[in-house]
Structure formats: C-alpha cells, structure tokens
C-alpha cells in the first residue's frame, strides 16, 4: 500500500467512524459530536495557516465571526433563506480575510500575531458598536423555522449531525488534498524556510495571502455552520478566546497533520466536559493536562503518533 492510499484510507476511515458514531453513541455524545465537528472545521481552517504555512494568527475569531454574522444578519435583517445566507457568510469571511491578509502580511512573526489580534479586537468592538443590529454580547437566536435547507430541518438532531458531518468531510478531504498539491507543498516550504522558497522563485507573499484567504474562508464556514445548526449568533464568538481556541486545538491535536484538528477539538471538548463534572475548578485540571501535553508531546497527539509510529501519516 502506498502512503497516498494509506492516507486516503485514514481519511475515509475517520469519516466512516464519525458516521457510525451516530448510531452507536448515546444521544448526549451525538449532540457533542455535532458541535465538535463544526468546531473541527474551524480548527482545520486554522491548521491550514498555522500548521502548514507557519503563520500564527491570533485573530481567527474575526473570520469565524464574519461567517457567523454574514449568515446570521442576512437571515435576521434581510430575511434570506438558509442557503443564500450561507453563501453570504462565506463571502463575508472571504472578503474579510482577503483584506486582513493583505494588511497583516506586511508583518511577520510576533508582529503578525499582534496585528491579527488587534484586527480581531477591532472586529469584536465593531459588533458591540452596532449593537442595535447585532444585539452585542447577548446575541440573537435564529428561529427554528428558518433553519432549513433543501427541505431538511437543520434543527433536528439527526439532520444536524449529518449536515455537520458533510461539511466537516468536505473541508477535511479538501484540505488533505490541497496540502499534498504543489500549492500546498510550496506553503510547507514557506513554513520550513521562507527565504529559500523565495530564492527558488516562488512569490511567497502571494502564496501566504492565498493561505490566509483559504484559512479564513474555512473558518468563516465553521462560523456560519455554527449559527445555522445551533441557531445562535453572539459577540462571544468574536472574542479573543475564540482566537485562542483553534490555536490550542491545533497544538494539542498536532499542527501540520490532517487529523490533528479533529483530535484536538475532541480532546479539549471532553477534557473540559469531564473535568467540570469532577470539580468547579475544571480549568485547573484542563490547564495541568495542557502543560503536561506540551511538555511530553510537543508536536501534539497526532504529531507524536506520526513521529513515533505512523511516519506516513499526512
């Protein structure tokens, strides 16, 4: 079996496992998994920029929120139905990431982190400022009746689960394919040694801009899907916390691996879920586990697996 066949087997296996989980797991966990898969889309988008291109952004909540509010506000204010609203959400994320990418890529390293963080803060404050439309921190609920697409009621647990699985699978497989393509390999080259990539004749600035746009648009899709499937849009999702989450997920799961984002979200989700059932100081337990993982598995769970066991893992 070649490495390519193995990775395809792995990716399809993960999707099959998620589909089977719906029939095996109790309702509580099925509900969790719907949420996890949508957040994993967000992590996949983040991983594309951080794990594969080597750009650490602290402002991805802005792209997530662009998708979320693009969909939410167009449904709330302009009575669009779900399908066109989803496209508006994607388009908003694309435009926002193109503009932010264009401006922020004039910097690199720590400055890039700070500039993206500042833009995201500005975005968050803008949402609060236009509170009469966005309802600020309180947010707004997307009525259950509107959450339907192509005749499917997306507020129903079953359709919601499979809608999340469908979107996750598309992003998961598309990014897995993209990072194996010449374009993706050039991004990896930029991550490894940007100056060398430039001196091989690659326009590294335009490559990085494309990476920001792809990453931001996938993150925006996650935001739009979250609003649509769970029926709520709020400014909390634009806070710095939601910029840090994908970084944590990707670091824990394994930056620069295709399955790392999903693993990271599952791990973090259940870490908080389980520790909060033990004590109210659950963040203390989560914190200790995170420190231990960073110490003993610095490449993340999937990263360590790849290093030690499955060297072929994409």
């Amino acid at each position, binding site marked *: 079996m070649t490495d390519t066949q193995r990775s395809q087997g792995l990716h399809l296996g993960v999707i099959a496992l998620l589909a089977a989980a719906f029939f095996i797991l109790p309702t509580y966990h099925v509900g969790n998994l719907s949420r996890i898969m949508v957040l994993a889309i967000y992590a996949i988008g983040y991983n594309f920029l951080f794990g594969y291109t080597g750009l650490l952004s602290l402002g991805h909540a802005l792209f997530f929120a662009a998708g979320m509010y693009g969909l939410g506000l167009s449904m709330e204010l302009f009575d669009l139905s779900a399908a066109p609203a989803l496209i508006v959400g994607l388009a908003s994320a694309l435009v926002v990431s193109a503009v932010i990418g264009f401006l922020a890529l004039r910097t690199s390293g720590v400055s890039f982190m700070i500039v993206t963080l500042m833009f995201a803060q500005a975005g968050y404050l803008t949402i609060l400022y236009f509170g009469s439309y966005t309802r600020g921190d309180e947010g707004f609920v997307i009525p259950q009746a509107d959450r339907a697409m192509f005749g499917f009621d997306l507020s129903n647990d079953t359709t919601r689960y499979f809608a999340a699985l469908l979107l996750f699978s598309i992003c998961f497989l598309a990014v897995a394919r993209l990072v194996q393509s010449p374009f993706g390999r050039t991004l990896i080259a930029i991550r490894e040694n940007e100056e*060398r990539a430039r*001196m091989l004749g690659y326009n590294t600035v335009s490559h990085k801009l494309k990476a920001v746009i792809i990453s931001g648009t996938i993150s925006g899709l996650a935001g739009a899907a979250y609003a649509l499937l769970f029926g709520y849009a709020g400014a909390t999702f634009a806070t710095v916390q939601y910029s840090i989450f994908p970084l944590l997920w990707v670091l824990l799961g394994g930056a620069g691996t295709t399955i790392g984002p999903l693993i990271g979200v599952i791990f973090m989700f259940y870490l908080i879920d389980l520790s909060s059932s033990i004590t109210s100081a659950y963040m203390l337990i989560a914190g200790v586990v995170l420190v231990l993982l960073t110490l003993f598995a610095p490449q993340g769970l999937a990263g360590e697996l790849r290093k030690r066991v499955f060297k072929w893992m994409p």
Partner: protein
Amino acid sequence: MDAMNILSTKGLTKAYGGIKANTDIDFVLPRGKTMALIGPNGAGKSTFVGMLCGRIPATSGDVFFEGQNINALAAHQRISLGIAYTFQITSVFAGLSLHENVALAARRRLGTDTAAVNAKVADVLARVGLTERTDQIAGDLSYGHQRLLEIAMGLAQDPRLFILDEPTQGLADSEVADFIALINALAGETTILLIEHNMHVVMQTAAYITVLNGGEILAAGTPDEIHANEAVQAAYLGTTTNA
C-alpha cells in the same frame, strides 16, 4: 546589450549608511562560461551577488540580464527568469526529504507534471551523488551533503545563470574534487558565477576571474592574467598561502 554577455552591471553601488560595500561596479559575465569572483573577506562579494539576484536592494546602478534591465524585479521574479542562487550559509528545507527539497526547486518550472519532476529530481540527485539518500530528511545530512543538496536544488531549476556563493566551504577534499568535476561538466551548458575562496577550485574551473577588493573591481581577466597581475598579487594572492 551584446549577445556575448548574459549579465552585466553598470555603476552598481550599495551603501550601508555611510559605508560603501560596493562602489560603482561595472561588470560583465560572458555567456556559457564559468566566472569566479574572488577577493578578501569583506571585499563585498556576497553583497554584489545579493544585488544581482535581488536579495539585497541596490543603492544605485543597473543590473541587466539577457539585455533586459531587471532593477525593478523582485528576487523571485529574477529567479523565474533563470537565475539560480545557492546560499553562502547552507539553507535547505531541513524538515523535508531530499526528494521534496529538489522537487520544490524543479516544480516551480515544471509545474504539476509529476513524472517530469520526479525524473528531474532523480537526475540531479544522481549528478551530485546523493541518490541513495533521496528519502532522508535534509536536516539529518552532514554539512557537506547539505551543500551538495543546495547545488542539486540549483541544478533542478535548469538555470541560465547559476550563482554559487562559496559552494566548497566545509567540503572534504574528495568532495571538492567531485565538485570541480561537476562544475566542469556544466561548463557550456549554463553560465556559472562562483564566489570561491579556494584558489585550487578557482584555477581548476574558472575561464574568467573578477577580483573584488574594498567594494571595487580590482582586476578582471583570464586566470593567467589575474595570476600575473601585480595589483592582485599585492592585494590578495600575496596574502594567501594556497595560491
């Protein structure tokens, strides 16, 4: 510009604050030949080639490649015209395999044609003698092998002009001999501009030599002419033991 020369410069100058690293350099590089650029440490050799390939912006002056003024082109655009550059301080993709390192160099030109890229990779790795290490991670190679990998990455671009910045630095004697054979095999195929400290390598490979001293061209000519040049002897050859 005349068809004889692939590259030339006019009045090329680089100043860092008040200090001039290169002053008014008028330089011509004959097509298809190997030219060595020599000079003592700090003579401005790396600054000069840095300005040729666009890594270092020139303060003033012009660079012509194939008769075209390329002042306004960014580094990656100059590379796309067919200028390959190897770094003085080894700069490979340390986390990637040798195959992927060379494939990245080949892919920019060959695009998505995987078969052509793979053939190119196999060809150039064989040329530098790294075939059996194809699947190793570049960062695990010895320093000498990393230098050879750099050369392979240059070759994979099928450059019209190949600029090598101190390629034999840190190579073992046997590897230096292989390198000389490699450069001589390329002669006629492509134009080579070699920054080199090892006079043995220079004398064995170069058809022409340009001597830089204090940021200015001190002399230019064939190896015999340079050897006989008194100014060069005073400034440079006289201070080395292996000349």
